[in-house]
């Protein structure tokens, strides 16, 4: 299947694409990933907080019904495969962006797919927090809202950054997948040239670039998480 992938001819064919299309594709992938992650965090963070605070032993216990609806919706969205979800949200995408094709359009399904995931990650970060610290805040007369804003979230920042790093690398993978049905970026190039036109070299280069991007996101995230953790200061 990959015979001649790395031959001189293949390289000659690939060169113009590598030079002309790749810079834009990398940029598209990066900004779609970052924007989608940002929106997913904007929606997922409050939901994750609600999952923890609204618990029956949480700081702001919510009715059981509300909590189970929230749980079911998040699990439901998490269980739909991303490609199917992308198709399912086409109407919403059209409503918001005006089209279902293109780089910007792919942000809508990415956010829909990612925010429930982010909500669960936020939940797990907040649950790591020592409950005694919350009790101490209560003993000082903190309101539930103050506990969330001044204790739960700030104290979980290093863990949240680690988890958001996991989110951004997962979303990067999703964004590449969105190339199959109209999304832009490295995924589109890998599929259009590599898979449909058998220019496997292009596919490999796209994959390598994706790997490099994941590495960059991951190491920046790791470093940031460690740097932000005041427990590690000596």
């Amino acid at each position, binding site marked *: 299947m990959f015979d001649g992938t790395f031959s001189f001819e293949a390289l000659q064919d690939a060169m113009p694409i590598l030079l002309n299309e790749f810079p834009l594709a990398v940029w598209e992938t990066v900004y779609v990933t970052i924007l989608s992650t940002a929106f997913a965090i904007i929606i997922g963070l409050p939901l994750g907080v609600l999952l923890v605070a609204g618990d029956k032993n949480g700081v702001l216990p919510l009715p059981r019904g509300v909590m189970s609806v929230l749980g079911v919706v998040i699990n439901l969205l998490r269980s739909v495969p991303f490609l199917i979800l992308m198709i399912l949200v086409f109407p919403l995408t059209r409503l918001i962006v005006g089209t279902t094709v293109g780089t910007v359009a792919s942000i809508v399904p990415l956010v829909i797919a990612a925010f429930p995931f982010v909500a669960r990650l936020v939940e797990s970060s907040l649950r790591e927090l*020592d409950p*005694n*610290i919350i*009790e*101490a*805040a*209560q*003993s*000082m*007369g*903190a*309101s539930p809202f*103050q506990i969330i804003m*001044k*204790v739960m979230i*700030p*104290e979980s*920042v*290093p863990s949240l950054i680690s988890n958001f790093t996991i989110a951004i690398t997962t979303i990067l993978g999703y964004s590449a997948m969105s190339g199959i049905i109209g999304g832009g970026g490295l995924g589109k190039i890998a599929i259009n040239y590599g898979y449909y036109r058998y220019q496997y070299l292009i596919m490999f280069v796209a994959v390598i670039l994706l790997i490099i991007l994941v590495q960059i996101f991951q190491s920046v995230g790791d470093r940031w998480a460690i740097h932000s*953790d*005041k*427990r*590690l*200061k*000596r």
Partner: protein
Amino acid sequence: MIELKHLSKSFVTADGKVEALKDVNLTIRNGEIYGIIGMSGAGKSTLVRCINMLERPTEGSVIIDDRDIGALSENELRRIRRNITMIFQGFNLLMQRTCLKNVCFPLELAGMNRAEAKKKAMELLETVGLPDKANSYPAQLSGGQKQRVAIARALATEPEVLLCDEATSALDPKTTHSILKLIREINRNFGITVIIITHQMSVIEEVCERVAILDEGVVVEEGEVGSVFANPRSAAARRLVFPEGNEIIVPEESGDERRLRVVFNGAEATTKPLITQMAVDVGIAANILSASTRCIGDKVFGNMLLGVDGGEEAVAKVCDYLQKAGEIVVEEVKNDV
């Protein structure tokens, strides 16, 4: 004044209902240092949490300066908690904030502006002796220093009551001593009522004026520290006073030896060797079978078991002699020690 009236608390767990507190009645006077001691699982932590309603008692009431705390709304309760602050065994500092910001925290909650809060927090760090740690993070401090920051934080809202939940249990003896000293200074200088929860006798002896002994959710003894510890009546109190076991090993009774229990109820500790002096003065050599005394302040508490030969007359002489020394009660004991 803090009054706990018929306080009961039960929890429903998977294994059924657990009664953590059973009809606890205590009165804590303003400005005193009150100790609540008990083994782990005795219900101490639950009790202290009932005082600021972190735990709602199942029955009974907590009355602070004639206000029934249990009847307050959540909002009023939050306000009154600034007045009844707490320190903990695990310090519970915010690990991502500097010490200064930790002390600012309750002031922020109360809505004080930043500059003012910072100034106040700095003063408090000076009070607890850590002005140089203002910009350090809790992870950079030792246990004792962390507790000092926690104390500064607890003082920030100028409370009238400080609750100490096993505040020295995670500290070594020397640090414990210095923290207790700080607590006593705070009690004296600011007139703050302090309630200390602990399982350590030494803590109670060192700073408390009065003590309650809690055992399986029940207050088994209560009163002045000296008299409670000198004459522990309940089994729980004896376990605390004599942690190595109260089973005094005494040789078999022999011949006409009579046994006397000598209870020191706060006798002046002097350099005078009492028992030896007795041998000289009345000519009776007593055999010390067991002794467990301790000094609390400058008073001696505890008891001693003497064996005396020589029948009724000798016993009477010994009783007479010792009781003249003051604050000593002598009683004859039969087989049961």
